[in-house]
Structure formats: structure tokens, C-alpha cells
């Protein structure tokens, strides 16, 4: 009996090895995806003896995109200044040219074209979104705010993380110490970080309050300004995630071959020249992947805005996950799922485009 079992398991080894992973992922991704899709086209209602779902078509989405929730999700439109139109036109030209180049490149496929079209439309759509909501009288909705956290937030984190890695890669004393210390913030729960930054950012009783007073900002509060509140959220997020970028980039810099650097150094190349000509080309693919990973995680931000400001002032710091979560709190399951699905769409288009259009070509170029 025992022998036959082990013989059987040996024969089926290839299946048994992947089975647990495949089963849980199926249970927790395919099924939730489909169920969420259904919820997003239905309305939840408490009724005698429990609850019921009523099919309502795409009403939940319509509300978000064109209806009463438009301000919340998309934002409020303002008049677009002329230079914005010009920038948009330029972007359109650039995207169109890239598409054309792809069509002429000779290795065009239907899938590739469709994917690039989706990416192009999304990029243009987002550019248009920012152009129309950032102007005078306009306002960012939760979609815009989320993209802001992703694009601007991750850019800043990457710049600082890379900078720190470059510093640490120098011949310095106490590298192990710095490496450990710089890694610390990654271990703090985001909820804890949010509270810690609320304490730190308190302008009347926080540790920095003498500085604010010294600057004459005693009567100003970051929490009442849309942009200052967003900045505080991004600072908290950066504090936590810079370590991640730092640790990976440091490893990348350390693993590059030393001979070239040495030769360049002997030739009298400056630090900046060495970085630009030797280090950067070598670490660029790693950098791109790290950025991708961070972007994927950044789309999910909720803890920080939720605890720092509850999404306020107004809706200025509300991310899409928080938007969805607030809807869930009042049991608006349909609305909540619709927001979540829009988030899924955005983050998938972003990640897949980034992977296909930036990381893959980069790798292809190396080989």
C-alpha cells in the first residue's frame, strides 16, 4: 500500500509539485475576479431574512464615470489652458509616432497591436485627466490621486533610494551599520507609520513645531491644504519603501564588474561620467524591474491616507482602494466593486505596459 502510494506520487510528481500553488491561486484569484465582476454590476440590499443582490447592468460604472460619483472618481473638470492643449497634442503626436514605428517594424502581431493601443489610449486618457482636473477650479478624483501616488511617489522613492545606494557603494566605514539602519522602515507596519507621521507632522505639538513656528507657519496646517496633505502621505510612503529600492539597487551596484570602473577611474573619469557611462547602463534593467514592483504595490495604497487624514481634506488624499473601502463600509458592495475593478484595470494596464514596453526591450537590447 505504502509502496504503491509512493510510486503513484512519484509518477505524479510534476503535478503534485504545482498543485497546491495552482489551487490556492485559482481559488483566490479567478473566483474572486469573476465574483467581483458580478458584484460590480449589481446592487446589494438588506432584506427580510438576510440580503439580496439585484442585477443593475453597468449603472455602478456609469455613476463613477459620468454620474453622481464622477467628482469622486474622475475629478472635477476645469478649463484647460492653452499650453496644456499643446502638451497634449505633443503627446498625441509622440504616441502616434511610436505606434506607427511599431506597425512598420516588421514584427507586428495582433496581440501586440491591441496591447499597444490599450496602453496608448490609457496614457492619453490619463494625460487628459490631469490636464482637465489640475487647472483652476478643477479637482483630482481618487483615480488621479492614486496615479499621482504611483508616478510621482515612486519616482521620488527611486531617486532617493538609488542615491543612497550609490553613497553606500562608496568605500565607507560602517557600511553594515548603514545598510541595517536604512532597512529598518520596511519592517514597520504601514498603520504604525501613518500614526508616527501624524505625530511628526503635528505643527503645534510635534517635534518639528519649533521649526514651523520659526518659519512663521504656526497658523498653517498641512491637513487643510490638498497638496500639503498629499505630500505628507507621499513622504510617509517614501519613508517606508525607499529601503526596498535601496537594498536592491545597492546589490546591483555592488555586483557590477569592477574592471571597467577601475579603468575609467584611472583614465580620470569623474564620478558622474563613470555613473552615466558604466554603472547606469549595467543597472538599468534592475532599476526598471524595481520600479515595476514598487508601482504594483503603490497602486494598493490605503493605510496612510486612511489614518493620516481619512481621505481629507475634502477628498484630496483619497486613493482608489480607500474609495472602494469607504463604499464597502456602508455596504454599497456594487459601488465598491466597481471602483476596485477600475483600479484593477489601471494597475494591470500600467504594469503590463511597463513590462512590455520598457523592461522587455531593455532585456532584448542586452542580449
Amino acid at each position: 500500500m505504502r509502496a504503491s502510494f509512493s510510486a503513484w506520487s512519484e509518477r505524479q510528481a510534476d503535478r503534485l509539485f504545482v498543485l497546491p500553488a495552482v489551487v490556492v491561486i485559482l481559488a483566490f484569484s479567478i473566483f474572486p475576479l469573476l465574483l467581483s465582476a458580478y458584484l460590480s454590476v449589481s446592487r446589494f440590499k438588506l432584506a427580510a431574512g438576510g440580503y439580496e443582490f439585484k442585477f443593475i447592468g453597468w449603472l455602478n460604472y456609469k455613476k463613477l464615470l459620468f454620474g453622481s460619483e464622477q467628482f469622486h472618481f474622475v475629478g472635477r473638470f476645469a478649463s484647460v489652458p492653452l499650453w496644456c492643449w499643446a502638451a497634449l497634442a505633443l503627446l498625441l503626436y509622440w504616441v502616434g509616432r511610436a505606434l506607427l514605428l511599431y506597425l512598420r517594424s516588421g514584427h507586428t502581431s495582433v496581440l501586440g497591436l491591441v496591447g499597444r493601443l490599450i496602453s496608448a489610449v490609457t496614457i492619453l486618457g490619463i494625460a487628459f485627466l490631469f490636464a482637465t482636473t489640475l487647472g483652476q477650479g478643477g479637482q483630482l478624483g481618487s483615480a488621479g490621486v492614486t496615479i499621482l501616488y504611483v508616478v510621482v511617489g515612486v519616482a521620488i522613492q527611486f531617486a532617493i533610494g538609488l542615491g543612497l545606494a550609490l553613497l553606500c557603494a562608496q568605500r565607507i566605514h560602517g557600511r553594515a551599520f548603514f545598510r541595517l539602519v536604512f532597512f529598518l522602515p520596511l519592517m514597520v507596519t504601514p498603520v504604525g507609520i501613518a500614526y508616527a507621521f501624524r505625530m511628526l507632522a503635528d505643527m503645534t505639538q510635534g517635534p518639528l513645531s519649533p521649526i514651523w513656528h520659526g518659519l512663521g507657519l504656526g497658523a498653517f496646517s498641512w491637513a487643510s491644504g490638498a497638496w500639503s496633505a498629499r505630500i505628507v502621505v507621499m513622504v510617509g510612503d517614501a519613508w517606508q519603501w525607499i529601503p526596498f529600492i535601496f537594498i536592491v539597487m545597492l546589490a546591483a551596484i555592488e555586483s557590477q564588474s569592477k574592471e571597467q570602473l577601475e579603468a575609467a577611474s584611472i583614465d580620470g573619469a569623474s564620478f558622474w561620467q563613470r555613473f552615466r557611462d558604466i554603472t547606469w547602463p549595467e543597472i538599468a534593467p534592475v532599476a526598471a524591474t524595481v520600479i515595476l514592483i514598487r508601482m504594483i504595490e503603490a497602486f494598493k495604497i490605503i493605510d496612510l491616507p486612511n489614518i493620516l487624514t481619512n481621505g481629507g481634506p475634502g477628498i484630496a488624499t483619497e486613493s482608489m482602494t480607500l474609495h472602494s473601502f469607504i463604499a464597502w463600509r456602508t455596504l454599497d458592495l456594487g459601488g465598491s466593486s466597481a471602483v476596485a475593478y477600475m483600479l484593477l484595470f489601471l494597475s494591470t494596464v500600467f504594469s503590463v505596459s511597463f513590462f512590455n514596453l520598457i523592461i522587455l526591450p531593455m532585456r532584448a537590447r542586452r542580449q
Partner: protein
Amino acid sequence: MNAFKRMIWAGSLLAGGVLAAGGASAGEFDGVTINIMTFTGPQIAEPMQRRAPDFEKLTGAKVNIITVPFSDLYQKLLTDWAGGTNSIDAGVFAPQWMVDYVTPGLLEDISDRLANDKQAAQDDVAPFFREFSQKFNGKTYMITLDGDFQMVYYRTDVAEKLGKKPPKTLDDYLDFAKAANGQDWNGDGKPDYGSCISKKRNAQAYWAIISIAGGLIQTQGTSQGVFFDTKDMKPLVNNEAFATALKFYKDSTQYAPPDEINLDVGDTRKLFTSGQCALTLDWGDIGTLAIDPKESTVQDKVGAVVLPGSSKVLDRATGKLVACDAKTCPYAVDGVNHAPFAAFGGWSGGINAKADPKVKDAAYAFFSFMTGPKQSNEDVTIGRTGFNPYRLSQFQDMTLWKKAGMSEKAAKSYLGAIQDSLNSPNMVLDLRIPQNQKYEQVILDTAVARFLAGELSAEDTMKSIEDGWNETTDEIGRDEQLAAYKSTLGAQ
């Protein structure tokens, strides 16, 4: 042996005067565990946690208090019960939410138990709580543990120095706040603020705006209602009265701490009791927090008044403000129409209908124990409990309050303001129609938060609330909601 010991124990407790609860006898609930959910304390949770060991000694039932952030409470409890998880046996929450719990049959009807319960001493409970707050469609589902009214608190010492009277109207309030703002009132060398009102989003701010608008909108008594027109469910939020309330709300920000928009009631209470604000608008908690020597630097410097009103009120036909006269404001005092707001309705206990019968009995016994005069009379005088007076005897018996450290004058002012609110024929009831959470905590709250942040003009704010409410009403069913609204108000 063990049971015997416990009986002796209970007996000695009885002799000592710590009364047995709800008719429960010693050891009756041995081995029973009650999971009770409420919001994160220390308020509300604290007194229950503190008294749970006594209750266990009395009856043998172990009480677990599970806390979640306030903004999650409604949904956590509802999904636990509606979803059939039933981890939670009872909850302490807002009676205002009762409708969403009663309709699917999630709350235990406790009419009979309460009627036959001497320990709970219901005759002593103020009629508003007994007859309205605890009940839904004529049946009792919850036990009030806390009385809730919003009021205005002012610093008596500041009023004296400035020569101001306690505010009667919204204009008085602003006038007082303006005069007091920027001066040092607690002697710490820093300028203090005129007014602190909690205005944080997703917190308690939406009650404040109704408190302010109430006196402008409701004039003809409680059954007129402040949220909707009882004829057609038309929201009463897009008119001159609500615009005036919004203007007041924003104007008061001028005399407030710079980060007022990010303060919830916890923050404003701390500011007020540490002497940094001259005025605030809050529930009854401030009165008792102010006498806590550990927290407060304003002992005996706090006065309370019923919510400020207005001498101009809404004419519902035109949407314009008209002057008060005998017809437009029948309940006006000195020409000022007041409409005290029973915001939230007071933390109350309700029992999961699907809990184990034995656990239900134990949960009931626990709530009965908590509301009993012996326990309640002590708890309502302690600031950190979050419990405010709701029993008639608590308003009459001054010794309670003196024992807790209040001066006679302060106690009279505090209790007077609550009683004025409680006895007002023009009291404003909180919204109790299905999904009132969505109307208030989402639509109203978001719009007002955006208004304060400067994202919306007053007109757009009102339009946005009106549209949002109409849309929700239509989604749920206008007739259904209208009927529910009228029945909660007792309107014809």
C-alpha cells in the same frame, strides 16, 4: 464546592449593595461567554470592561468586549450578523442604525424582558429614550446606556472677562468666538482659539452641521423633521437655511485651530478641556471630562447651553428665510427658534437574534446590569465612560454630581442644558430610515468635507447633497423611504 463559594460571594456582594443584575442569580450563566462589540474606547468600552469582572462574579458569565474603529462599527456588526458568522453576541451601537438591523431580523426583540425587568428601572429612563430611541415600530430592541444630545459649551471665565452672555443664536456664537480668539485663556503663554468644532471627514462632523442647521430648518415640532419634506421626501438641504448653516460652519473656522479640518471629537475635546478653546459644540461628554483632574485644566469654568438657534427660519414653500413670529416659530424662546439635536441617539445595547438562547439571556442580563441605576448613576458622572445622563433621577439628584467633583453651578448649567434639549417640543431626531449611514456618513459628510476644503461652493455643496440623497432614495425606493421617514418621526 465551587458553586457554593460563589454563592457566598454573591451573597456578600448583595449584602454589600452591589446589586444582582436583571434578576440573574449567582452562577446562572456559569461557562457562558458573551462577545460584545462596540467601538474603540476607552469610552463606552471602558465601563463595560471595568464592570465585566463584577458581572462575572455575580452571574458566572464572562464578558469579552471587542472593539473596532467607529467608522467600521456599523458594517462590521451588520456583516457579522447578516452573513451568518455570528461571532458577536451583542453590540453597543447607535439606535439610529436599528432599522438596518431589524428589517433583516437580526436584532432580538426585548420588549417583554424589559417590561418585566425591575433592575433596569425603565420608569426612571427619560421618555425620549424609553419610548423612541430604544424602539422600532413599537417594539423594543435596544437598551439605552447613554444619553446623547449635542450642545454648546462655553468657558464661563471667558464669558465673564469679555462681558458676553452665553450664545443664544448662531450669530452670538460667532461673536463670542471672534472676541475670544487669539487671547491666552489657559495661561500657557500661547494664544488660544475662539471655537473648536470637530470637522474631520469620516468622523463625527456630519452631526455638527445638522446641529447648526436644525434651528433654521425645523420649527413646527419634532414631527416636522429636519432632513426631508414629509410630503414627498424632498431633501431640505438646498435652501437659504442650509446655506446659512454652511456659512456659519465655515465662518467658525476663522476662530479655530488651523488644523480643525483634521480634528475629530477626541481632538476637540482635548483642546477644550486643556483650556485652549473658548467654545465648542459637542455631546454631553465635555461636561464630565471637564471635571476630571487628570485631563482637565478648566474645572468649574465650563457652562453649557442648548444649541444656538435663529430668529430667521426656513419657509419650506419658498426655500427662503423668514422672520420668526407666532406662526412660523411656535416654540421660539425670546424670538429665537431652537432645535436641539438628539444626534446619534445614545449608545445602546442590542442582542443578536441568532445567538445561543443562553447567551442571549446573559447578554440581556449584562445590559440590564449596566443600565441599572446603581451602575449607571456612577458611570454617567465619569468623563471617560462616555456615558451621559439619561435617567430622570440623574437630573434631579445633585449629590451624584457633587460627589463626582462638579460644583452646584456647573452641574445645574450642564444638566439644565441637557434637560432643555430633552424637554424641547422642537427636538430634532436623527435620521433613522434604511441606509441612513449612506445618507449621512457618506453623502452629507463628503459634501461638507469638500465644502470646508474649498473644493465646492456652498451652492454646489447643497446641490451635491440634494442630488446624492435623491439618488439614494430612488435606488432604495421613494415610497418605502418616505413611509419609513414618516413613521420614525411620528408624522401624519
